[in-house]
């Protein structure tokens, strides 16, 4: 569904202020996708008993921090047209999903609750795909 809305936004036109926001959204999404995919890779390695919990915590902590900075930075953007506003909302909500999933993993690992972390794998996967879509909106 998210993809449908985004495609509509994309097809609706390429005004200049829209273009600027779209560039920013795409760049933001690619950076965010990196952290989401890192988290997913870490959880997968934990699940396969290939990684200790200490370094895993460290890596997820770093990913969460970096993702938080990226999301905050995008939310300070100023959408000036209606289309921009829609894209802005859409990207913000995608980022929120990503932050929620990564934070959930961080909390789970903090409590050494591996099962809870593994339950986030699907959400991470989905979030990563959504971000990839946004990432393709612009160069």
């Amino acid at each position, binding site marked *: 569904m998210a993809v449908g809305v985004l495609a509509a936004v994309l097809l609706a036109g390429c005004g200049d202020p829209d273009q600027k926001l779209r560039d920013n959204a795409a760049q933001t999404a690619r950076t965010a996708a990196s952290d989401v995919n890192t988290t997913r890779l870490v959880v997968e390695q934990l699940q396969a008993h290939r990684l200790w919990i200490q370094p895993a915590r460290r*890596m997820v902590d770093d990913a969460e921090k970096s993702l938080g900075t990226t999301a905050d930075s995008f939310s300070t953007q100023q959408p000036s047209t209606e289309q921009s506003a829609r894209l802005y909302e859409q990207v913000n909500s995608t980022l929120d999903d990503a932050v929620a999933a990564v934070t959930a993993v961080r909390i789970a690992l903090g409590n050494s609750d591996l099962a809870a972390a593994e339950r986030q794998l699907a959400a991470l996967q989905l979030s990563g795909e959504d971000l990839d879509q946004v*990432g393709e909106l612009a160069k």
Partner: protein
Amino acid sequence: MKKLLGVTLGILTAIGGFVDIGDLVTNALVGARFGMHLAWIVLVGVIGICLYAEMSGRVVAMSGRPVFDLIRERLGPRTGLLALVASFLVTLLTLIAEIGGVALAFELASGVSYLLWMPLAALAVWLVIWRVKFSRLEQAFGLLGLLLIVFAVALFKLGPDWGQLLHQATQLHPIGHEGWATYAYYGIALFGAAMTPYEVFFFSSGGVEEKWTRRDLGTERTNVFIGFPLGGLLSLSIMGCAAVLFLPAGIQVGTLGQVALPVVVAFGKIGLAVVLIGMFAATFGAALETALSCGYTIAQYRGWQWGKFVRPREASRFHVVIIVCLVLAVLTLLTAVDPVKVTEYSVVFAAMALPLTYLPILIVANDPDYVGRETNGPVRNAVGLFYLALLTIASVAAIPLMIITKAGA
């Protein structure tokens, strides 16, 4: 037999000593963003460092004069001072990055914040410099750094499509969302990581520490021409691992943990243990080298007694410089600046400081007053001049590219 052992030891040390925090971070980062499309820069950098290390080694063996002594002599006090300030600041920045790297490796292993490890790391660096013999510290950390070969083995284990990697390596252009500006910027960063100025300061001062003479020329050349290229292969395998695992997954490398991840995927917990020890050895060894190089540059420019071949009290100003630099490094890191970011900047600034370091070496390697009959031949001069031009272009382009690309963002 003993000679063969010595040569082997020298080569192994050169391989292990080649990779430091700059190579670890930059190669992984570039592999994740550009695949192998920038691999050729590593090749160019390795040839360059071989060329200049050989020249400075030859000058040391024939005349006993290390690099910064010559820089002041050939460039004069004013231009020499400019070279000193640039080289010293870059070396200090690299020292900060290396100590940060040691602390990050401990943080990954223990889960305890790197901010706590860092003063310990700096203290350990100082203690080793204060108490341990030069050849011993060089060998110990060089050999332990060889554990990073795990990246090469991991690359095989990951079972990449070799044809595709090779194909990437022959396509010299940016891919995906990357533009030419970021491509060039990271090219310069890789170049700076491979040719970092402190490597030559350390190498040539080490020649004096170990009292090289004309008879050591052969050993010196073998170490350089075999050890450094193999070190370069290590760099390439770090890049390859990132290209295979991170590029398709859209993961950008920004932490030391990510640099180690491909080895985890390939070998699990054992792999992680090996790679963490390797990273510790590589960064700790490089922290020793950069701390010493901070002292070498200033002492050699001013003509002070320096080196570990005398007792500390006989080279008191040299040792004070090292202590001050280590304190500065800890204070900088205590501001919670990201050591990985410091590394990314340090390799680019390194590229900027290179021409002033290399010009005097090239001149002196041609001067019979210093090297007797061992002057450069026409081929070495042609290649040397080509590299000088390359270094100058990279040096001039670094800052504009840094601004255009917002430091590679």
